[in-house]
């Protein structure tokens, strides 16, 4: 039996055929589409290394059955940079040394992107509230303990991105 699904993957429409309904979105990305930037850490939704944006919202790809994603838009770490130009969140992670081994970093960056897009700014003027960033990023573990740098990077990326939005609106 085969399960056809349509995905918009990093902006590109893809028609895929799954041969098994058990395939998670994470395994689809890594094992079938060679997009290995999204990492498999715990495979249980606890570490956040597999975080991707599904229809613009950050989710754990390891707990998401691919067959249920028919019609969805998926954004992975591979879709962030424009050629050699890094995304503001990626630049902020480098600037603040927000990683050591780097294994959790794609998930951290996708989670940060989701966070900036959802709660913080909508809560109103929370731009400098590190406590809200720590709470909002609690679904991403870093065993190297780069949390201080990650928090600083998310705050800076949020400022950069909201300034860019304001400049575009002006």
């Amino acid at each position: 039996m085969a399960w056809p699904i349509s995905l918009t993957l990093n902006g590109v429409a893809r028609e895929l055929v799954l041969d098994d309904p058990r395939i998670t979105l994470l395994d689809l990305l890594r094992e079938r589409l060679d997009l290995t930037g999204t990492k498999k850490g715990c495979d249980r939704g606890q570490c956040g290394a597999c975080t991707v944006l599904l229809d613009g919202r950050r989710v754990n790809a390891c707990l998401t059955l691919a067959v249920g994603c028919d019609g969805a838009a998926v954004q992975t770490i591979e879709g962030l940079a424009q050629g050699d130009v890094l995304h503001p969140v990626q630049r902020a992670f480098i600037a603040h040394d927000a990683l050591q081994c780097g294994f959790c970093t794609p998930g951290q960056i996708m989670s940060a992107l989701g966070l900036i897009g959802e709660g913080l700014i909508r809560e109103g003027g929370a731009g400098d509230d590190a406590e809200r960033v720590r709470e909002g990023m609690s679904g991403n573990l870093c065993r190297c303990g780069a949390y201080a740098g990650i928090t600083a990077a998310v705050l800076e990326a949020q400022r950069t991105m909201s300034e860019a939005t304001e400049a575009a609106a002006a």
Partner: protein
Amino acid sequence: MNRFEYVRPATIAEAVAAAGAPGAAYLGAGTNLVDLMKLGVLRPQRLVDVRRIAGLDRIEALADGGMRIGAAVRNADLAQDADFAGRFPAVAEALLAGASAQIRNAATVGGNLMQRTRCAYFHDLASACNKRAPGSGCAARGGETRQHAVLGWSAHCIATHPSDFCVPLAALDAVVEIAGSGGMREAPLAEFHCLPGDQPARESMLAPGELIVALRLPAAAAGFAAHARYLKLRERTSFAFAVVSAAAALRLADGRVTEARIALGGVAARPWRARAAEALLAGAAADDAAFRRAADAALTEARPSGDNAAKIELARRIVRRALLLAASGTPARRPALPASPFAAPEDGDAAHV
């Protein structure tokens, strides 16, 4: 993970028909179910994906002042719905105290009610568990019991229901709308989950094939909006299940309690409504002495189910603090750390520790 059939019905009637077969299970986001299937704890033969059923993703304000929430609404969407959070702030706070942002973005309201216990022995196929394998025994008895029950447990099972969301829902008289092959029925959320007794495998009042289609909060529940909090004690500041938690909601007039609602989480196989404590507060002065008496009343029947007697005193303290926080008023702005106990009652602000 075992092989399964995947079906995606378009209507409630199709879903109920598809789930009537033995071995069928409803699939929401799968944040709990897929995990348990990977472990081999659950082995459904058919998954009935309910996320594309028309109307199940709606949040509706009702004419009488209540609200109706479709079973496939995402936890994050409900917590961020300004109208909902304004009327039922303790429910929004509890939602935001649960899991991580990634899981809240996916997990559904119906799935939250139906999530399974986080008892480690239920998850471990090598352990005896009357819930997973009826008659095999309970390895949690005499084991690690920090996450286990102090109320409503039996010799057969001491597991707790892990939901935060359900705790204020139980306090506020939420109603569960259920579809089955015989039509629709309703049940109070506070009685939706079963206590273990001698049949711990039966966890809710749903019959096989029945589907949660919506939750309803009655208009009266919005009357507590000015004084409603959820407070959760856990082993780390974020992304951990409750050791104990409490929802407290008050209606106050001239320094006295007109009406109180209290429920506890992390202490039983269901969100635990503390009606005796509520009755004790009705008409009482809204002060610490009354809140201490209410907290004592809420735990009168509590008994340790293992090496967890400390949870009873923790629960008393959390009930009292939730009442103090509620009395001081629902914060105008959501705290940075929802439901955190690391807050002074007077300012409601919290910080990581």
